[in-house]
């Protein structure tokens, strides 16, 4: 018997979003206009199905030529070095997606759209 498991992109996105948001130095994920549009669609769908899907705003999942790429948009804290936080997000997304879905992420592209400095 052969069996195949298919892990859908929203699952990867949900896991990746949670991994990225939980990385030290990340203040929040930044959805952008496209993420907002997707979130509105999801909210509408949740109302029909009665299920609340895991938030994945700020995360995009692409598959091209069999390669899985995750793009994450984040706001980081100015206390830590942005480059180091970015790398930590890459590692954490790859690790969590592999652990929770079994899928290997080929590349994680992190975009730091803002750095929040502490108030003076």
């Amino acid at each position, binding site marked *: 018997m052969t069996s195949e498991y298919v892990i859908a992109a929203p699952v990867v996105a949900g896991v990746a979003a949670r991994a990225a948001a939980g990385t030290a130095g990340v203040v929040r994920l*930044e*959805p*952008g*206009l*496209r*993420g*907002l*549009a*997707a979130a*509105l*669609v999801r*909210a*509408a*769908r949740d*109302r029909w199905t009665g299920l609340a899907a895991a938030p994945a705003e700020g995360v*995009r999942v692409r598959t091209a030529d069999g390669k899985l*790429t*995750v793009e994450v*948009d984040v706001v980081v804290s*100015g206390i*830590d*070095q*942005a*480059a*180091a936080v*970015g*790398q930590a*997000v*890459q*590692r954490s997304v*790859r690790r969590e997606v592999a652990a929770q879905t079994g899928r290997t992420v*080929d*590349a*994680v*592209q*992190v*975009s*730091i*759209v*803002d*750095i929040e*400095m502490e108030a*003076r």
Partner: protein
Amino acid sequence: MAVNEDYALPCGRDVDTIWDRLDRDTDEHDQDCPHCRTAREGLLALRSATRELIDEPDPTPPDLLGRIMSAVRAEVRRGQMLDLASAEPGGVAVSTQAIAVVLRYAADSAGGVRARRVRVRQVGVDAAGAAQVAAELTLTVRLGNSAGAETLARVRELVSAAATARVGITLVSLNLLVEDVYEDGE
């Protein structure tokens, strides 16, 4: 339908063109260009979202305006991204606006000086793949500051240190333009 009169993507195409071609076949450029692909996906998501919302007569979600404005601000900040060094597959990029925030904060912390405009642009790429950056800060200095030269030296030191320690980029040049003076209590 006109989405935006003159919103050109970095590749030279404008969003109007992409909107018009949304239902037509994509050409080679559409498929290869990351800017066009991103814009296209965004417009498709937006179109399906608006259609579903029109079909769905429920009240609009709370704080919709706030969320739209925050999303718009994020899009603007995303404007220009510079690469940071990363050993992991993929990449890490930071917006020039985010770098400007860090540099301005560092300059302000020198005391006796306030940063106004901060311009950041990429001038090259270092061995690790990180952007090399040239920055220009416009400053106002406090009136009666007898140690002006020292203050500027401190600004220079703090700003360069912040670029490395807080962002992870190297400043290859830093120009300070003192444009104005202010009085205490201002």
